[in-house]
């Protein structure tokens, strides 16, 4: 029983990175912009966060540094894509490539560094409930903040005026523009907020999840987060679900290996990716579903005045 509680806890931890990045990318995509540079942004944020944590010893400053790094990179991306109308997919890929090279480059000095041990986190009282306690309530505060943020984002998107405007920009920037909204500026803000969240996710990896810096340490999580937004049909709660699903399958396959299950470890490692494809297919099968949920202008350039 205890093992399952711990497995659940590990799932929450593993899924949080994907969840934060996924929510950020969701904000991005809701405004109509696809940012394939998630991986690069997370890497740069990871080294920024790690370096800050090493220099200042503060986790929260590290998250702030990561958010800043992500926002700056996303800002550069945003200017290119929104004002200069460069192809979103290619620009995003360029951002990814640049981010991995740049982070490796800047991080050379930090590969030998390590962070002081972190205190154990546990929610008082709740953390001691048998089973549920170790499963749910002994996580880093960021795990809970993520859930809170998801709730807040859902409220923002569906209940607030600003959220409505954001969704309108994503559905039909031309109409929003005709109504007098500063479409490009709104998109830039969305892109930068999305980048900041990817940054926080990146910093979480290097400061909390694996408190080290190594080049390429994000190891594909940025790409998985991108998959999650589609998988989640652009709804915040489903992003979280998908993130935990993916995190859970990842931890499960290690668990199965440790138990000596006679399935080859490579086949087990494939599981999370196959699971993602399967769910993607199930969701996409209904074209109406996708059409009603995907921001209609996603990936398309916007020319004001047309």
């Amino acid at each position, binding site marked *: 029983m205890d*093992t399952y509680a*711990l*497995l659940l*806890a*590990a799932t929450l*931890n*593993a899924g949080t990175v994907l969840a934060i990045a996924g929510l950020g990318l969701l904000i991005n995509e809701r405004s109509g912009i696809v940012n394939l540079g998630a991986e690069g942004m997370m890497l740069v944020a990871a080294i920024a966060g790690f370096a800050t944590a090493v220099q200042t010893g503060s986790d929260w400053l590290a998250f702030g540094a990561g958010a800043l790094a992500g926002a700056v990179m996303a800002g550069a991306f945003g200017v290119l894509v929104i004002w200069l109308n460069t192809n979103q997919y290619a620009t995003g890929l360029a951002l990814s490539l640049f981010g991995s090279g740049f982070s490796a480059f800047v991080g*050379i000095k930090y*590969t*030998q560094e*390590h962070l002081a*041990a*972190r205190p*154990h986190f546990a929610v008082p009282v709740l953390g001691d409930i048998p089973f549920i306690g170790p499963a749910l309530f002994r996580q880093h505060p960021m795990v809970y903040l993520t859930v809170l943020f998801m709730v807040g984002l859902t409220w923002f998107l569906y209940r607030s005026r600003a959220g409505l405007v954001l969704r309108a920009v994503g559905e039909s920037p031309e109409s929003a523009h005709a109504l007098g909204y500063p479409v490009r500026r709104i998109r830039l803000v969305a892109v930068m907020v999305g980048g900041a969240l990817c940054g926080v996710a990146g910093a979480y*990896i290097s400061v909390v*999840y*694996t*408190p*080290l810096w*190594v*080049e390429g*340490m*994000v*190891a594909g*999580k940025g790409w998985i987060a991108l998959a999650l937004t589609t998988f989640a049909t652009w709804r915040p709660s489903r992003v979280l679900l998908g993130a935990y699903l993916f995190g859970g399958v*990842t*931890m499960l396959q*290690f*668990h199965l*290996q*440790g*138990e*000596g*299950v*006679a399935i*080859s*470890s*490579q086949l087990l*490692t494939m599981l999370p990716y196959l699971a993602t494809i399967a769910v993607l297919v199930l969701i996409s099968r209904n074209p109406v579903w996708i059409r009603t949920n995907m921001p209609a202008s996603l990936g398309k350039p916007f020319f004001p005045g047309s």
Partner: protein
Amino acid sequence: MTTSTRRSVLRTTAWSSLAVAAALAGCSKKEEAAPAAASEPAAASAAAAPASSASAPLKIAFAYLGPVGDGGWTFAHDNGRKALEKELGSQIQTTFVESVPESADAERVFRDMVAQGNTLIFGTSFGYMEPMLKVAADNKAVHFEHATGYKTADNMRVYDNRTYEGAYMAGVIAGGMTKTNTIGVVGSIPIPEVIRNIDSYTLGAQSVNPKIKVKVVWVNEWFNPPKETEGAQSLIDGGADVLLQNTDSSAVLQTAEKNGKYAFGWDSDMTAYGPKAHLASSVNIWGPYYIKAAKDALAGTWTTGHTWWGVKEGAIDLVSISDKVPADLKAKVDKVKAGLKDGSFAIWKGPIKSNDGKEQLKDGVTADDAFLGGIKFFVKGVEGQVPGNK
């Protein structure tokens, strides 16, 4: 012609003129006075003259799998290189290339090392075997040293460390320190060396605590800190409280630290990465071998072969044993160390059974290097099967 084709023709012209300009620039740069340290002879004429003249230092090059800052495997090799420099000073000149992928690119790196005048070249990972063989075949005057491989040539030899000795000693400590009688290993890639290490860890633990069980997870890479973390976490969640790793970063130790469990450093001294969790580090000390190899090359006594050094030759050691380890356990480790040093103690001595019940080593028989080199089974006490076995 359509617009696009005309544009592409114009583009072609633009690129070609750029290439021509670059080539011309290159020609003029050849005349530039290049700094003395790294001279660049024409790449085509690759044959490098052996450093026979007393004045010219022996040029030695190292190819590393990972970054020197990985705190693990490559870090240990680089420490060996630094020890070599310290010992032989002006007689040699060393360079290194890090993060050389184990693919077709490696061949190019080795060829360039030869072209740069290096006559003693070390390839520090198994995957360089085929590229090194190819380059060795074309450059008979250059000496090649391949770590952890098995193919040799007249001018290429193999060297390795008995990492399993370090694993065994770690196992002794693990067996004594575990409270749950379950210990774990985060494995990298299921090659004989790693399987041997897992087995030796188990044998060591069983020598002080016959009840222990060993759980294994495979990351399927040498180096992937987030995956290593996840693997370590799942072992801990499965009940293991002392972890060994065969991967190259300090992630496993850090995860143990986070969870209040124990772990060992691997390849290099990792105490700093997890002071509370760290019990000891099994380190690779490459300095003595590198010094010997360089001296062989300098003296002209270099011959091919297969070197496998361990505690006896000072290539493996279990260091920084924590104060948490009780004195009697430490004494046991010291006894093993002494026994390995003078050759009186053999880790792989029968009777040894694999975990499917078959007898692998008869009672009283000591395994020879051939047996050790081809270990494909898990000893009794290890859970699960070796991946890839039928």
